[in-house]
């Protein structure tokens, strides 16, 4: 009898609308996200890796393997989150709430640093501040005759500064969007009641944007702890290890089991803190801040502070966007980074192989590696933009239209997991799973397909979020009517949602494109010489002691990403309420 009931339930479950679609979505996200992680977990507890967990956590080696790097990682995470929220929040407040001049320009520039690859900023730092501790070329400042102390050239300080300069724009974007929703009725009411500016800020604005501030802090924390390029370029010369660099080192020398354990621990760290952040704001989500009324007629009058504040904001923007770009460009032309603006020549760009320069490395234009890397990188960006858009839309559609039920809840949770998984750990998991083939999948190591799949999985949270946003724009009524006329799910997606949401989708796809072509941490392990990518080539040149080539390649990446970003901004300009007057 119980079996009958179960059967009936089973049948009704299967007959429920969208069941097949749900299962498809579940299958996709499982293969993309869950399997790779389970695979490395399984490997670390297999016989082959016996004792590795103990070795990493509780042996005489564990301080250097895990606890020491963990301390550095946590310090970087907290300090970077604090710095990013302060700078990003400050700029967001200026742009969204005040009458600062050139708001549009500042608003645009504050979003750019995130589009500049973090390794580019790190390389630029090196070109400026490198000192002679590790020999080779010294930086521009030592070239001018000033001694650069070790703490400014290497290790914690430069790593932190570069991380903040890179990720503050993430905090800016999150906070500015929240500030834009602050109901001006509230502010006006307070002003009428005679509240002072400080009181309005602490009494109304801060409570309303508090969830956004916490979200910005946990996002920048998670990004900073998983960043690989910056500590690798600026920290390793003084033996400063983070979990990401230690993980890369272990896998690089073939100690895979230790590497996988570190990857899992890194995921755990990042997950714990994102979860804590989420707990802090979860009770407060019910603020109704968007009422449909109330424009943004009133802005804070900055008065005498207007121009000093503008100078500070503009300075921050210039130092984090234009300066690194100019330094990189100059150092791709100068034979020595100690004299950035002299003896410029184009050898590193278009020179032929010359035994007297850089061991006979030809300029990047004549290097078949760079040319194929450019093609592959752009190809990867386009392919991933397409796949993520498709997967994101499908999953978001399933979640939006068939919200109820266990499967939907599971899908929802799984799509969030990659947020917690640092790119480098993801790369490690993908090699483990697809390195030798499993189930119906052939061995994909070294193939373009593997890069596409890994990147699609890595960006799943982002693409699902984009998908949700565009689906919410399209009224459920349209979808409902189409369903009543008998249109299937895919038909509705293709005929109604896609056309109506094309602009939002294109914008999301462009951002995915930029995220992928400038990414290093995800691809640094997946890279093979037969499948070169620009960011990895730049990193390798930099670590082999050929900074000019690294910088020239980085300039290429920059030009492509900035062009795509500006295009995305054009598409998006209609949906940036904080820029409206």
């Amino acid at each position: 009898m119980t079996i009958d009931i179960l059967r009936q339930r089973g049948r009704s479950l299967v007959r429920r609308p969208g069941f097949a679609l749900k299962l498809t979505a579940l299958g996709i996200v499982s293969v993309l996200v869950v399997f790779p992680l389970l695979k490395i977990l399984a490997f670390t507890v297999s016989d082959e890796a016996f004792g590795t967990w103990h070795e990493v956590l509780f042996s005489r080696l564990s301080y250097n393997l895990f606890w020491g790097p963990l301390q550095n990682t946590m310090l970087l995470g907290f300090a970077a989150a604090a710095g990013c929220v302060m700078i990003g929040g400050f700029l967001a407040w200026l742009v969204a709430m005040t009458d600062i001049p050139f708001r549009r320009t500042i608003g645009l520039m504050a979003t750019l640093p995130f589009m500049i690859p973090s390794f580019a900023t790190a390389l630029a730092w090196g070109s400026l501040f490198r000192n002679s501790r590790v020999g080779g070329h010294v930086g521009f400042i030592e070239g001018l005759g000033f001694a650069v102390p070790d703490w400014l050239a290497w290790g914690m300080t430069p790593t932190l500064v570069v991380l903040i300069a890179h990720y503050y724009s993430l905090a800016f974007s999150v906070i500015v969007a929240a500030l834009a929703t602050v109901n001006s009725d509230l502010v006006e009411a307070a002003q009428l009641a005679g509240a002072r500016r400080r009181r309005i800020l602490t009494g109304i604005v801060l409570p309303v944007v508090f969830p956004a501030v916490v979200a910005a802090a946990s996002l920048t924390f998670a990004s900073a702890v998983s960043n690989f390029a910056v500590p690798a370029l600026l920290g390793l010369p003084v033996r400063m290890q983070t979990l990401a660099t230690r993980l890369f080192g272990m896998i690089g020398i073939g100690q895979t089991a230790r590497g996988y354990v570190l990857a899992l621990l890194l995921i755990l760290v990042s997950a714990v803190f994102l979860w804590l952040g989420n707990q802090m704001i979860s009770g407060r989500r019910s603020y109704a801040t968007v009422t449909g009324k109330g424009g943004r007629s009133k802005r804070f009058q900055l008065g005498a502070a207007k121009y000093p504040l503008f100078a500070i904001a503009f300075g921050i923007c210039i130092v984090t966007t234009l300066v690194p770009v100019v330094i990189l460009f100059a150092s791709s032309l100068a034979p020595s980074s100690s004299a950035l603006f002299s003896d410029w020549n184009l050898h590193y760009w278009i020179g032929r192989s010359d035994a007297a320069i850089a061991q006979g490395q030809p300029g990047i234009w004549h290097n078949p590696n760079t040319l194929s890397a450019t093609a592959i990188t752009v190809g990867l960006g386009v392919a991933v933009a397409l796949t993520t858009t498709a997967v994101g839309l499908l999953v978001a559609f399933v979640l939006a239209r068939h919200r109820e039920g266990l499967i939907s809840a599971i899908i929802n949770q799984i799509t969030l997991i990659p947020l917690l998984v640092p790119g480098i750990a993801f790369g490690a998991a993908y090699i483990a799973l697809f390195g030798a083939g499993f189930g119906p999948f052939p061995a994909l190591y070294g193939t373009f397909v593997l890069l596409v799949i890994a990147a699609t999985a890595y960006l799943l949270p982002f693409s699902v979020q984009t998908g949700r946003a565009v689906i919410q724009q399209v009224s459920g009524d349209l979808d409902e009517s189409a369903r009543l006329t008998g249109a299937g799910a895919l038909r509705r997606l293709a005929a109604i949602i896609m056309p109506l949401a094309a602009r939002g989708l294109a914008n999301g796809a462009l951002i995915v494109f930029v995220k992928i072509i400038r990414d290093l941490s995800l691809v640094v392990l997946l890279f093979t010489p037969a499948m070169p990518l620009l960011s990895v080539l730049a990193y390798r040149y930099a670590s082999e002691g050929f900074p000019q080539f690294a910088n020239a390649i980085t300039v290429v990446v920059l030009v492509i990403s900035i062009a795509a970003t500006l295009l995305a901004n054009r598409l998006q300009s209609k949906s940036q309420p904080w820029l409206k007057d």
Partner: protein
Amino acid sequence: MKYVFWGGLALVSAVFLPQLATAEPDIDRMSVEELLPLAQNEGRVTVYSFTSRIARVEKEFEKTYPGVDLIPSDMSSTEQIARLKTEAAAGISNADVVYLSDTPVVLTELLEKGLIQNYVPPRVEDRMPNEFKVPLLAPRLSTKVLMYSKEAYPDGSPIKNLWQLTAKEWKGRVVMVDPLQRGDYLDLMTEFVLRSDEMAKAYQTQFGKPIELDEGVDSVGAQFIVDLFENDVVIVGSSDDVSAAIGRKGQKAPPVGFTTYSDMRDNEREGWALQVANDVEPSNGIIFPAVLAITTKTAHPAAARLAIDFLMGDDSKNGGPSYAPFYVPGDYAARTDIESHPDAVPLKDLVSWRVDPAATAKLRQSIGDLILLLQ
């Protein structure tokens, strides 16, 4: 007459038939002229190389053999080994030729497991001592030895005994590459341990008393490594960086360090003053073979053999243009007919220890863990 004919035929068959039976000619025995058209048909050859000088070889190779594209990939031996293993697990082979050191690992992890195969070009086999033909072809010997700046120390090396490096005077002034990232340096560390007896004697000479080991340290060599790290040894990314740190002119008190002897070749171009410290107790470091091999699953077997033949140098006394990047002071050709570079210490006078791959392979992991512990 008839008998002679049949007898002759029998004789001819006996001699030639076995080869006819194999039908395919043995590619390992082919001359360069025979390999070239096959290689041009294959079109390309990918070389994983531990030396950045491969970029210069590429240029010469493509000039000499148009139609065969040599694609170099400059990566450390350690990384090559990790990659070859991953590629093998995935059933693919991106590289055709590998040029690397780290022989202790190469022999056990790559050759014995069938990932790479030996190839000795017939053109040079009569000019190669047996130890450099078996088990793998070794075109030359490379080094990781103690070097100093002859500008700052015109009277010769400031280091006469390795134990000086652990003294206060040299705190923070000894440079090397992370032994966990570069196998050559791990081999160097391992050699200190293998030579513990010599290290103990040198300690006695330097400090006038027998060495006492710290608790938990089980050999004199390990004690040396511990002391070196406690003396704030500077770890950098590549041996080029070590050479620059030591050699750059105009430094008042430049560091010393372990690097590749042949980096001396860049003295003039880079403005360095590198010189090898050869008058050192008990030794100045290690000398070890660099090996060339073909991947077992190569898709370009003829081009791979052509590239290896090319990398061995032409028949002139200095190996000609294809060997020019390696005909430099501090590199020692394995070919008996290539003379040592006149500016270098002759091989027989170099005090460096010769690495024993088998003995090193046994100790390597535990020395690696020791380094991990010290970092």
